[in-house]
């Protein structure tokens, strides 16, 4: 099960990276987000999985696809200069980062101990537990998040309106 969702996630992400057409790349992103939601279910966290599907695939990706279609930028524009050095440096950097970090994760004894001590599947996360923690311990953070969303909404309208 884990390997299926991991493959959906990683292949979706890789398809996004390699795809020429921006809309198809966006649809690959939707597949990757669904894969991540599946991983959250396997992590005994259906609340996070539902939020992932609603917010990421339901809101953010729809917004992105909407903007792609509105600006009519389906294809990547032709490069003004090809910049081969920068491209190779970034490819080398990203591969070095990925390989180095994966090697560190696999070699770490602390992570191995944690994986063994917490191997038993915990009780599934419920909305009630999340709500109690949210309003008991993080009430201020919750209010600030609401204010931030309001500010972002007003900012987005102000930025896109032609003459305010």
């Amino acid at each position, binding site marked *: *099960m884990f390997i299926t969702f991991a493959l959906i*996630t*990683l292949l979706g*992400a890789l398809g996004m*990276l390699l795809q020429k057409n*921006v809309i198809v790349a*966006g649809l690959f*992103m939707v597949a*990757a987000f669904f894969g*991540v939601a599946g*991983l*959250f279910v*396997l*992590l005994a*966290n259906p609340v996070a999985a539902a*939020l*992932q599907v609603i*917010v*990421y695939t339901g809101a*953010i990706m729809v*917004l*992105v696809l909407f*903007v*792609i279609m*509105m*600006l009519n*930028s389906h294809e*990547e*524009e032709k490069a003004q*200069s090809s910049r081969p050095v920068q491209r190779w440096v*970034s*490819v080398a950097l*990203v*591969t070095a980062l*990925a390989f180095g*970090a*994966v090697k560190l*994760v696999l070699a770490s004894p602390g*992570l191995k101990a*944690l*994986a063994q001590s*917490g*191997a038993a*599947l*915990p009780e*599934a996360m419920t909305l009630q537990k*999340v709500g*109690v*923690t*949210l309003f008991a311990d*993080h009430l201020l953070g919750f209010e600030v*998040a609401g204010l*931030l*969303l309001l*500010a*972002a909404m007003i900012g*987005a309208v102000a*930025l*896109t309106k*032609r003459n305010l």
Partner: protein
Amino acid sequence: MTGMDAILQGGLQGYLVVALLLFAIGLAAVLLRRTLLMQFMGVELMLNAANVALLAFARFRGGDSQATVFYLFIIAVAACEAAVGLALVIGLYRHRDTTDSDRAASLKQ
């Protein structure tokens, strides 16, 4: 469980490897693609990688609900970033008629 087994069976290391590779792919999209919308999707991918790692650690520490609350805050910020970021892309398109980040290299018109 040996290293390879832990990855294939969905041990903690398996989730962390998926998160790391997801982050690397997102970073590659930001560095290699020139369309701003593709770079934006790369940023979203990197945010998601952080979420996967966070919730994997929470599950192996006995299903802590604090992590889910943090995840809630992270997606609230991601939604704000999406709205403002896409508004900026639209603003750039209005002024320069392009969504290519290379063509927006100077501050002057």
